């Protein structure tokens, strides 16, 4: 039985890109762009803006790829760039986050069993996450959606594991209060 070839790792693809192999960039994008889109969407980006934000994230990433220190995963590093793109986009276009926090508050009138289950409520959750302070939002999403541990999160956000844990708990506390 022939061995299944192992896909090249991210560092290998990055090295190939730096050596001038364009196809490596395409492979990295194919591997990570959907997760970057999900990260942006969960952080409050509108669906219609995802294509542009993902494109800009990767374009910027490839232009400064020599600044990726490999202390963090490539995807985790991309999330940091994506977060900056979202912040800049919100600044340029006030109101880009289409989900005001007030809409989450209305969830309190729903029966507890239905809270956080319907699509409408998922949108409220997205609004709540978008309204969090940036570091709380980033730590919370990285921890819950992508399973990063506090040390990895701390490395990419330039903080300590203890501080990352505090940001996470503040986020949970705030979202929990809104979800009751």
């Amino acid at each position, binding site marked *: 039985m022939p061995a299944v070839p192992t896909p090249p790792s991210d560092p290998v693809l990055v090295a190939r890109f730096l050596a001038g192999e364009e196809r490596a960039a395409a492979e990295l994008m194919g591997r990570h762009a959907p997760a970057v889109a999900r990260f942006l969407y969960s952080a409050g980006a509108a669906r219609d803006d995802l294509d542009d934000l993902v494109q800009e994230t990767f374009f910027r990433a490839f232009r400064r790829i020599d600044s990726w220190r490999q202390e963090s995963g490539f995807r985790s590093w991309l999330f940091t760039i994506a977060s900056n793109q979202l912040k800049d986009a919100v600044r340029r276009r006030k109101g880009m986050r289409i989900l005001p926090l007030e809409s989450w508050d209305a969830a309190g009138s729903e029966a507890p069993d239905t809270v956080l289950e319907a699509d409408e409520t998922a949108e409220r959750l997205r609004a709540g996450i978008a309204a969090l302070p940036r570091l709380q939002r980033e730590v919370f999403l990285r921890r819950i959606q992508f399973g990063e541990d506090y040390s990895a999160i701390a490395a990419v956000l*330039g903080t300590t594991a203890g501080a990352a844990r505090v940001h996470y708990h503040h986020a949970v506390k705030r979202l929990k209060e809104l*979800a009751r």
Partner: protein
Amino acid sequence: MTEIHCELLQDRIPEVVSGRERWSAEEAAHLSRCADCATVERLLVATSALGRDVEARFDATPAILRVAERLRTEGRREVSPVRRHWIAGLVAAAAVTVAVLSWPGSGAAPDFARQEQSFLTELDSLDTAELAIIADELAPPLSALGASEGAEPLDLDSTQLERVMRSLEG
């Protein structure tokens, strides 16, 4: 019967939600009767599911083509002259701020700290090339202000400077 602490249990929810760990029978029983833990679990389950459809349906092909084209045509970023003037203004503000903050016994008044925060926010939006310009240009105005003792931040490279900005943002 072991007592279940809510804080410890809630710390484990991400591991269970991700499938890396499982609840014990006692923990499951606790979840069924503790409203607070159940709320956190619902919150984290909902968050772990958020955007899965976006990820599953995202077609990266158009972005791949556009990024490839842009990399071919635009290459490495050159900072425009207009942008350089804007950065120069930030450099001046940064120099004054660092000088005042590092002045012996200055006490950094609260109003000043607020002004400092506003331009730090602007700095946070700069990319690496632009931060490098600031790092390069910040030293002369600071030395002119006689703030050598407090000039350690100038020794930071662009990555370190970015991290400082993020940590100040809180």
